[in-house]
């Protein structure tokens, strides 16, 4: 799924935060090109 891909992480404060998703992606060998934690209002 992650092989050869640039991963864009769009976390949300009230859901799953960006750093948590990014940590998962990196642990699986993925390359995180951009990660954020948005506040959806």
């Amino acid at each position: 799924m992650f092989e050869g891909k640039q991963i864009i992480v769009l976390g949300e404060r009230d859901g799953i935060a960006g750093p948590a998703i990014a940590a998962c992606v990196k642990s699986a060998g993925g390359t995180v090109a951009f990660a954020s934690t948005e506040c959806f209002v």
Partner: protein
Amino acid sequence: MDLNSQETIKRLAAEHGPDQLLVVLGAPDPESAEIAAETVVLGDPTYAGALAEAQLGLSVYHALEDAFRSQIDDAVWEDQIGVMADVLEAEEIATAVRGMRERKPD
């Protein structure tokens, strides 16, 4: 979706090509997940950001979808995300994102 995020996604799509990008969402409910997915597949539905009318057709998944979870070591997934899986409407969120993924332009 945050306007700065839209600018960055547009730039990354230009640099790497849309086929090389994969988006992972952490939205807390089906509605916000669907809007975020729509933005990176069909364009910003609010016409406020850089992705307005940009049909990038990016591959998009939610962090609670099995397709994502299956890629992650169980211990890492539980440590980073596990508790939220018990709180959020995982199945409804997955259905919303999958539905938008299937609307990817040819």
